[in-house]
C-alpha cells in the first residue's frame, strides 16, 4: 500500500478542508432547526421536518442541480453571496463545501434534535427559580447537557461530507486541486487504465476516515444520555 504521494495527500487535505468547513457552516443552521423541531410548537412543523430531511432521499444529482440554479452565477442566492460576502461557489472548493453542508444537514439536525429532546426541561425550570434568565439557562443548562449530541452530529455530518459525491460533481464539477475530493478522485481514477493502486490507497483512506468518525460519533452519542441522568430522576 505504501506512502501517499503528494497528489494523494492534496486530495485528502482538500477533502478534510471541505468537510470541516461544511460542518462549521451548517452548524448554526442545524442547531437552530434542531432546537425549533425539538421545542417549537407551530403550524407547519411536520412540513419543515420533511423539508429538512429532503436531502436524505432526493437523488443527490437533483440536489446538485438545484444548488446550481440557486447558487450559480445567475441564481438569487449566488448573487447575494457574491455581492454581500464576496464568496463565489461555481467550480470552487467553497461550492463543494456548500454541497456537502446541504447533504450533511439532515443528519446533523437529527442528532442534535435528539440530544435537545433528551435535556430534562425540569432542570431548566430549576435554573429559572435560582435566578437564571432564559438565555443564561440555555447557556448553562441546555447547551452543556446537549453538547455531546451536538458534537456527535458534527462528527456525523463531517463523515457524510467526506463521502459526498453526486451533488458535488453536479454542482461544481470534478476539478483536480479545487473540487476533486476523495470520492471524485476515486471515480476519476476508475475511468483510467492502471489507476488500481491509486484507487486502493484512496479507498482505504476513505474507509478509515469514515470509521473513525462513526466510532467518535457513537461514543459521543452515548455520553449524551447523561442529560437524563442526575439523581433520582
Amino acid at each position, binding site marked *: 500500500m505504501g506512502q501517499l504521494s503528494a497528489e494523494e495527500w492534496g486530495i485528502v487535505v482538500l477533502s478534510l478542508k471541505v468537510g470541516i468547513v461544511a460542518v462549521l457552516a451548517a452548524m448554526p443552521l442545524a442547531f437552530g432547526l434542531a432546537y425549533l423541531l425539538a421545542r417549537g410548537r407551530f403550524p407547519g412543523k411536520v412540513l419543515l421536518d420533511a423539508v429538512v430531511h429532503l436531502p436524505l432521499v432526493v437523488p443527490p444529482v437533483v440536489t446538485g442541480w438545484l444548488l446550481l440554479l440557486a447558487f450559480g452565477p445567475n441564481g438569487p442566492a449566488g448573487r447575494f453571496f457574491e455581492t454581500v460576502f464576496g464568496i463565489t461557489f461555481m467550480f470552487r472548493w467553497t461550492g463543494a463545501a456548500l454541497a456537502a453542508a446541504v447533504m450533511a444537514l439532515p443528519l446533523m439536525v437529527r442528532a442534535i434534535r435528539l440530544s435537545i429532546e433528551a435535556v430534562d426541561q425540569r432542570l431548566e425550570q430549576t435554573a429559572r427559580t435560582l*435566578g437564571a434568565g432564559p438565555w443564561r439557562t440555555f447557556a448553562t443548562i441546555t447547551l452543556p447537557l446537549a453538547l455531546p449530541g451536538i458534537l456527535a452530529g458534527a462528527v456525523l455530518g463531517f463523515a457524510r461530507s467526506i463521502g459526498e459525491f453526486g451533488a458535488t460533481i453536479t454542482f461544481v464539477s470534478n476539478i483536480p486541486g479545487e473540487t476533486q475530493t476523495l470520492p471524485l478522485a476515486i471515480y476519476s481514477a476508475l475511468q483510467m487504465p492502471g489507476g488500481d493502486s491509486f484507487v486502493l490507497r484512496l479507498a482505504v483512506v476513505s474507509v478509515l476516515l469514515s470509521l473513525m468518525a462513526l466510532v467518535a460519533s457513537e461514543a459521543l452519542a452515548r455520553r449524551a444520555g447523561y442529560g437524563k441522568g*442526575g439523581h*433520582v430522576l
Partner: protein
Amino acid sequence: MSFDVDIALKRGDTPIAARFSAPAGITALFGPSGAGKTSVLQAAAGLLKPERGRIVAGDVVLFDSAAGIDLPPERRACGYVFQDIRLFPHRRVRDNLLYGWRLAPEDRRWMTLEEATDFLGVDHLLHRMPRTLSGGEAQRVAIGRALLSGPRYLLMDEPLSSLDAPRRGEIMTVIERIRDELGLPILYVTHDREEVRRLADQVVEIGTR
C-alpha cells in the same frame, strides 16, 4: 414578612383555588394527591400562570392579574426544593450550591457557602458529582442550593417523599432548623399527616372545597 396568595387556576379541567397568608414559619399545603398542591407552589414560583388572582411576598407583588403583573421565576427570589431533587447532573456539588448564589445580587445573599455546608453537613461532598450522592445527600445539597440563592420565601414540594425512613428523620431535623432559625415564610406541600403534625405552624387544606 408574610407571603400572601389568593389565586384561581386550572389544572387540566379541575379548578383549583387557594387563599391564604403565610407568615414566617411553615405553612403546610395539605391534601390528597392530585388536589393541586404542587400547582399552587408552581404558581408561587412563576412556573405556572394562575388564571387570576394575586401573589405578594412582603412588599413585592409577584403576580397580579388585575394589574397585569407577572414576574418571571428568575425575578421572584423563591427558593424551590423539588420532590425529585433536580440537581444539575453536569456540575459538581459545589457548583450546584453556588449556582443561584452567583446570580443573586450581593445585598440579597444572606448565607455563605461555608455557612450552608456547615448547616447541612455537606462540606465533604463539594467535589462530588450529583450522580454519586445518596438520596439524602442529594436532597441536602438541593436545600443548600435553594438557601444560597438568597430567597425571600421557600417552596418545598414533598422534600421527604423520595427518601427512606432514616433519611427522612435527618432531613426533617434540617427543615425544623430552617423553620426556627431563618425566619422565612415556607410553603410546604405534603400529604403526610405526621409531617404536618411535626413541622407545620399552620395548615391550608387544598382540594377539599
